[in-house]
């Protein structure tokens, strides 16, 4: 528990296998942003048998809808949104090759099963620490669905983005066993 690890995106199986729920992670590399509306469109493409706007294999999706950037800023404030709204879409994306997600809050049983099935990982970032997290985002490019505004898919490059392994590849869930350690019955 609570080992600090430096991790590179896109993710490799051998790196995922080293992660245990509760580990602190500093994430580096290129990741993608998507939330509700973008997920709906991605799933529609998969259902229609069409290609996704980016190669999803081994990638990480960060659930975020940033504030508009001021002139000179790479991105506005950019903390995680509640992940469970993406739960209906997530198993499908994991089965298509997605390896990691960053968000906040617990996930459904179906998502945890899909994480185990696909040897992937779910990271928690601190909700509302949105200026702090934005400082780790060094480059940004909108790559799809510009019409969705804050919900457009952005390719971002992060350096030392702080997060925590919330659900690891074995399905161990910090939202379950974290509170169990501290509850007073």
């Amino acid at each position, binding site marked *: 528990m609570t080992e600090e690890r430096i991790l590179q995106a896109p993710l490799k199986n051998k790196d995922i296998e080293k992660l245990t729920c509760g580990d602190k992670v500093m994430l580096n590399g290129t990741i993608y942003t998507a939330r509700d509306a973008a997920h709906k469109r991605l799933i529609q493409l998969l259902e229609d048998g069409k290609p996704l706007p980016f190669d999803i294999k081994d990638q990480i999706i960060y659930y975020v809808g940033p504030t508009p950037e001021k002139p000179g800023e790479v991105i*506005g*404030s950019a*903390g995680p949104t509640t992940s469970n709204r993406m739960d209906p879409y997530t198993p499908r994306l994991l089965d298509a090759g997605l390896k990691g997600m960053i968000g906040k*809050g*617990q996930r459904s049983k179906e998502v945890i099963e899909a994480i185990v099935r696909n040897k992937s990982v779910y990271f928690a970032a601190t909700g509302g620490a949105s*200026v702090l997290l934005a400082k780790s985002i060094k480059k940004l490019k909108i790559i799809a669905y510009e019409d969705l505004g*804050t919900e457009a898919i952005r390719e971002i490059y992060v350096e030392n983005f702080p997060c925590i392994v919330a659900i690891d590849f074995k399905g161990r869930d*910090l939202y379950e066993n974290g509170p169990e350690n*501290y*509850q007073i019955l």
Partner: protein
Amino acid sequence: MREVNASEITDIVQRLSIENNIYLDKDVTDKITESAKKEDSPIGKQILEQILTNAKLAIEENRPMCQDTGIAVIFVELGQDVHISKGIFHEAINEGVRRGYTQGYLRKSVVEDPVFDRKNTKDNTPAIIHTEVIPGDKIKITVTSKGAGSENMSEIKMLKPADGIDGVKDFIVDRVKRSGGMPCPPIIVGVGIGGNFEQCAYLSKKALLRPLNTRNPDRRWDTVEKELLTRINQLGIGPMGLGGRTTALAVQILAMPCHIASLPVAVNLQCHAHRHKTAII
């Protein structure tokens, strides 16, 4: 009768919308600081420290503390001896929200209809406006920015009078328990009790406006608030739901008379980015 220009209302709502999202109030940062010192969970402690660092960075860099700059919920106490001239009251407020959210680079998070197109209105209007008419010739305006993460974890229940105080307490604790990490703990728990269905929901939101360093003026509710805060923090949910001692910073209750056959209870959860600012015209 005192004349107040509608444009004055617009200016104040614009200013408060922006300030709200940058400056976290001291009563909130004080509570988080106090909790960070007592937090046993290393992850929980780190999260609370990140929240405090973030609050400082938001001010230093003049940026919104959270990317969910919320839907604007506006409480107005309108003195009955005020006449608003040169404009329409609700339009003046919405114009303030429009300008604040645009000029302040705040996120526009309102959709035109809830189900069909869900098309963004692109200026964060319309605001939700609650107006109470009070004696006097002043207008008190409180702008809050309510994020959806915590709002989505809120609930109302029509209890039976026989459920009594234990039923009320259990419903509140259970609501927090089922919410886990989703409302961005540490949270503030706003509770409305009594009234009727819609009044109770309103009370639960209004209860959140009380400064965190104050006590409930009713001694009975003050005791209940303290007991509930202890029970909630014993759940172990902790900062962001990852385990710890700090799940809530405060429980705040507002109660009012109700029907002989009713016992409505509403719980409105508020994330740690507890944003509300007030001005008086």
